[in-house]
């Protein structure tokens, strides 16, 4: 069975691993690089638990053959915090009681990060659309949407403070 060496920049760090044909980006992250934040909830692209940023764009990593993204940059939930300093989205999820079982949380947070990177001031409905590929079975979504809107506010406030500094 042909095996390739695949190079990725993962959370800013150069990584190389061996990929079999069936090795998806998700399995490579989880099983070869030890980054288990992205979850396998369906392997069908329909639950969003495996969402990571591929060259800045959120993708369902379960549907990406690892060999096809050689040389790309990948961001996962593990790379969001700066040491002990959580990202605004992570902190807003904590403060807003926006997690229950936590299985969807990493994917949900990556979708939220991607939204806020593109749109710093989203409406609630834009948040709804942005997380429509992320299934949560516990919370009923409302606290998640609130947390993402709250994170956007925090980020804008901080940007405002830095601008006036």
């Amino acid at each position, binding site marked *: 069975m042909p095996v390739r060496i695949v190079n990725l920049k993962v959370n800013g760090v150069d990584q190389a691993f061996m990929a079999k044909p069936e090795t998806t980006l998700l399995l490579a992250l989880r099983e070869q690089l030890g980054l288990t934040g992205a979850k396998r909830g369906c392997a069908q692209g329909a639950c969003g638990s495996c969402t990571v940023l591929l060259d800045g764009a959120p993708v369902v990593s379960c549907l990406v053959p690892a060999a096809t993204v050689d040389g790309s940059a990948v961001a996962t939930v593990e790379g969001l915090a700066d040491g002990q300093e959580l990202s605004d989205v992570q902190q807003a999820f904590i403060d807003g009681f926006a997690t229950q079982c936590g299985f969807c949380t990493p994917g949900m947070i990556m979708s939220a990060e991607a939204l806020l990177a593109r749109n710093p001031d989203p409406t609630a409905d834009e948040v709804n659309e942005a997380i429509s590929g992320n299934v949560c*079975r516990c919370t009923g979504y409302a606290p998640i949407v609130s947390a993402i809107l709250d994170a956007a506010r925090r980020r804008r406030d901080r940007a405002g403070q830095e601008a006036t500094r």
Partner: protein
Amino acid sequence: MTLLYGRGFASVNYPTGMNLGGDPSQALIHATTMGGFVISLSSVDLGQGLKTVVAQCAAETLGMPMEQIIVDTADTDTGPHCMGTFASRGTHRVGNAVIMAAREAREVMLQVAADELEVDAGDLETDGSGYVRLKGSPAKQIHISDIALAAHFKQGKSISGRGMFLKERSYPVPETGEMDPDSCQAHACTVADVEVDDETGVVTVLRLHNTYEIGRALNPAMATQQVEGGAWMGVSHAIFESTEPYYPASRAHGPVDFSEYLMPGSGEIPEQTSVILERPSSNGPFGAKGIGEMTANAPIPAIANAIFDACGVRLTTMPFTPESVLRGLDALRDGA
């Protein structure tokens, strides 16, 4: 196109725990050298927050701050028996077991402290910040880390406790069904407001107004998570979910993934207003009742009743799909 609006009501109760073969859970608790308290369980946290709420129960009972509590759970080699996480039993059963274990440990803790302070244990109290102190003379106090050190290195004592909760098995009388099936009952009432599209049969749940009586909200934020997430599941059951969309006529077209298995997305969530009432149960931990399961139940009939209120279609089969609404509307129009 006409959008029709309706309101529906439902009220329910729900049993805590079960009567199946007895309903036990056990807990062990012990202090570490520096006065951390490890709660050993085999109970499972499904995301409802059991690990947090039992730590609260232990902290309250011990009179210690939350930071002192460590929960070690779900290893069958180290944790004592727990029946499992189901039947709205986790908080009630495990909470009770933890309280019992914590009481026993607290007694030892106070005795060790009493020996160190050379006072009577009965005159001691905890202040919730980590100190055990003499009632009326707060200056005479000792920190839990010193108590634990003394227990381990001077007094040769284990600050520990065992807790068990058992709801004994109740055998239903075959002829009449006489039985004792629960420990207590929680309650809920839902008012649902819906919108019905009279051309497509699509039902939109606009608002849910809920009151829940849950005995005691041990953690109001997590209780809110439970009731509002559960109500969402009720909406989902009511208007979307089925593993056999053509039940019972055919088993074909069963959904195989999250695309086909329909649930409301965040674009379909109703506005929820929730109020919590507390009538502490006599046998619950600090009066708490089980609420995990009840929360999905009242929204379903409330939505069915609201659909009738909106458009005159009585739906008696779950889920209430656009097709079932539209067939009902067509029948009304044909009959008119």
